[in-house]
């Protein structure tokens, strides 16, 4: 085969799961030595194609049509033996969930030995290879890690191990399936950098499957956009991103909050680009009531978690392990203001918000809400305050009771707070659902019968049931496709204007928050390291961590 034929040729490929068509007569090529980004939202079929190329489609999948060639060979006619020869050698695969990709019962070193099953080097030499690979991915304390088990490593470290394994394979084709999606932005940046180095080093071809458009722009040479089993567009990154010829693609690009430079009051959404409205500083200032006392004022809050000791620890006199989740945190929110609490996993942001709510006990400090010190009242006295401050949780479907219909969940706060008497609850439920843009027939649905975005809206509706003064939204855009993020954003923006709500958003998604938040509070290792208005923090960050965070999330575009 000549060097110029594509490494992977897919022709008219169709893959079905029962009656559902995941891949609909797709034709695409991956050029040798190129990095191809395969982009699409959930249900687009991109992961299915990736799985097909390595021959690991799930049990229920059927390939009903088309051809799939790798380096000129017909993959669809491969026997198990054929696959055994090319997997881990010519084709390598890094999967989506680094948490579960490693064998939990084997040490890292052992697994890395297994990978080298085709070579006839001695075990010592193979271990040396493994060590070298770990060092190449900049794994701290590489030697020690070899004898550890996966559960003793953090998520980022596990992902590095996966990439190290791939490095050792030196494949012709590397497939990564959403390999960076679950990671924090700063980690994602590092992994992407690693992958780029790897590609230059080995000269391999890469198929990078993702829904993060910004990463594709940075890493990939070519891009293919998929939607519900069809290819909408393909071409070089430069061409497609600057001049998309397909409507879906251009919509996708326009809706991505990270690609919208100016601060917006309303973001464009997939099927209604016209919604976009720029933010007006005057309106924003009017919305916030800065003159009176802040609505929520947290002062010097400390939250410590104690790890319970096992029997042996007590007998051997080991001291209790303490984790200081939040250290001396202070934070103010004015009525009508939207404040973003930003940090990566483990920064303590969720804990701080929950402590402000007294869902988690705090050691020291003050929490003043509308004049009352929340830490000095009893649990019973706390009840009415729970009506004024409501919490919207991270997992949209998981935060709703699975056996309760949506209509019941939505008005439950009314029942709990005793304000339900005299009200027609069904009407209230309908009103609340309409407020968040859901039709009446959602009243009788169960949580698992809805999409993530719809469930998120139900969460908002429930949070609004008691007409609170403040909503705490925990990762409101997590797990949602980019196009849906815009819808939730617009919903929150509208509600805060019509209901004069204060919002505390906990997130690590800077893209959306940049448009929505008036002020940003940055947390790192339990401490608040910087606060300021959104514009000021982005334009001129003072703390080193803020700079790192902004660079990783927003890239160098914003002059950091």
């Amino acid at each position, binding site marked *: 085969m000549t060097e110029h034929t594509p490494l992977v040729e897919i022709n008219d490929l169709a893959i079905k799961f029962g009656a559902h068509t995941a891949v609909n007569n797709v034709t695409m090529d991956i050029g040798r030595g190129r990095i191809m980004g395969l982009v699409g939202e959930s249900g687009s079929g991109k992961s299915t194609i990736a799985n097909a190329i390595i021959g690991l489609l799930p049990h229920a999948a059927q390939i009903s049509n088309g051809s799939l060639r790798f380096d000129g060979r017909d993959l669809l006619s491969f026997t198990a033996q054929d696959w055994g020869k090319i997997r881990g050698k010519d084709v390598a695969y890094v999967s989506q969930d680094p948490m579960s990709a490693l064998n939990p019962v084997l040490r890292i070193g052992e697994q890395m030995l297994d990978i080298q099953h085709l070579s006839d080097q001695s075990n010592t030499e193979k271990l040396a290879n493994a060590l070298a690979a770990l060092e190449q991915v900049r794994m701290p304390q590489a030697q020690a890690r070899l004898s550890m088990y996966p559960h003793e490593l953090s998520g980022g470290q596990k992902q590095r191990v996966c990439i190290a394994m791939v490095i050792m394979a030196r494949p012709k084709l590397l497939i990564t399936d959403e390999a960076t999606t679950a990671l924090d932005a700063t980690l994602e940046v590092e992994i992407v950098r690693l992958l780029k180095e790897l590609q230059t080093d080995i000269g391999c071809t890469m198929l990078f499957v993702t829904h993060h458009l910004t990463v594709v722009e940075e890493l990939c040479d070519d891009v293919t956009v998929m939607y519900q089993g069809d290819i909408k567009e393909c071409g070089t990154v430069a061409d497609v991103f600057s001049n998309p010829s397909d409507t879906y693609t251009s919509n996708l690009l326009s809706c991505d909050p990270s690609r919208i430079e100016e601060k917006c009051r309303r973001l464009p959404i997939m099927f209604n680009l016209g919604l976009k409205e720029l933010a007006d500083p005057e309106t924003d200032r009017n919305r916030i009531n800065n003159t009176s006392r802040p609505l929520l004022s947290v002062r010097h809050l400390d939250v410590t978690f104690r790890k319970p000791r096992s029997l042996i620890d007590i007998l051997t006199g080991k001291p209790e392990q303490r984790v200081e989740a939040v250290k001396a945190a202070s934070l103010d929110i004015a009525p009508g203001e939207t404040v973003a609490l930003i940090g990566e996993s483990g920064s303590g942001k969720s804990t701080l918000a929950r402590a402000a709510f007294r*869902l988690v006990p705090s050691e020291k400090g003050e929490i003043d809400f509308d004049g009352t010190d929340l830490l000095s009242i009893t649990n019973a006295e706390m009840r009415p305050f729970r009506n004024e401050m409501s919490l919207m*949780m991270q997992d949209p479907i998981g*935060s709703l009771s*699975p*056996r309760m219909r949506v*209509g019941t969940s939505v008005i439950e706060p009314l029942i*709990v*707070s005793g304000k339900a008497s005299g009200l027609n*609850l069904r009407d209230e439920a309908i009103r609340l659902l309409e407020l968040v843009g859901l039709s009446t027939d959602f009243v009788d649905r169960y949580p698992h019968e809805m999409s993530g975005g719809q469930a998120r809206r139900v969460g908002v509706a429930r949070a609004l049931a008691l007409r609170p003064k403040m909503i705490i939204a925990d990762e409101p855009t997590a797990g949602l496709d980019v196009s849906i993020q815009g819808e939730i954003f617009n919903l929150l923006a509208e509600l805060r204007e019509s209901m004069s709500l204060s919002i505390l958003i906990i997130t690590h998604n800077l893209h959306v928050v940049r448009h929505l938040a008036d002020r940003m509070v940055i947390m790192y290792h339990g401490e608040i390291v910087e606060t300021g208005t959104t514009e000021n923090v982005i334009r001129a960050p003072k703390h080193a961590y803020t700079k790192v965070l902004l660079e990783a999330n927003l890239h160098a575009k914003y002059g950091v």
Partner: protein
Amino acid sequence: MAQGANKHTRLTRVRNVIRKLCSTPLGLISVIVVTAFFVVGITGDWIAPYDPIKLDIRAKLQGPTAAHWLGTDQVGRDVFSRLLVGTKVASYLAVTAVSISLTIGIFLGMIAAFTSRWVDWSMLLIFDTVRSFPILMFALAVIALFGPSVNTIIGIVVISTFPSYARLVRTQVLSLRNAEYIEAQRAMGASLPRILMRHIFPNVIGPVMIVASMDIPLVIGVEAGLSFLGLGVRPPTPSWGTILNDGFSFIRNTPWIVVSAGLPLILTTVAFTTLGERLRDILDPKLRR
């Protein structure tokens, strides 16, 4: 709407479950057998064609005939009638023992989940200790000390089985406690009793019911075993175990008593086990692949 709707939904939910149970042939059969078990347990005395304790020496040890569908035993009693009436003992024991055990287990399990670490730890210790007694041997020991009676058997079964319910409930409650929707309830200010009743209990009751339905054959088996050894119900009360014993003594004369006596045991075990497995498939949302 909330209260009324939930009564309505609870009924429809139960009806839905039953409908799904009956949707496969095996499921349907098991539902029928289980229902028959309880029905015969109550009405056995009346629907039996013959008096189960009436002797008729002339007709002894016959195989199945038109007059005696499952034959007769060594003193001429009709085996079929005896089996029907024996269902009374089996169902009474099963229902009583399992319900008491369930109640105690759920109660203790909830306490263990909400109490301090040390109390929880001690309770677990007690559960594990009880589970270490082999059930039949424990039963024999208790019977040796206190004599055989139906209530003794119930007591033995309750003590032997409540730990598994308690452990199950405890595990479920512990994992649910950290579920997001429970946190949402606490954020709303819902009181602990409300959270327990409306949110935790309905999610716990499913797995518990599954274990209960698989425990019933165990209870029936223990009773049959004890009666077989002559340490269960006192004659002349018919019990499947005593009939098995009769059959065993006369196994070289006729095989039919043994075969017939085994049938209800097999039927009930199959039915309840299938019921439990189908329930598990229906109630576990994760299995919807």
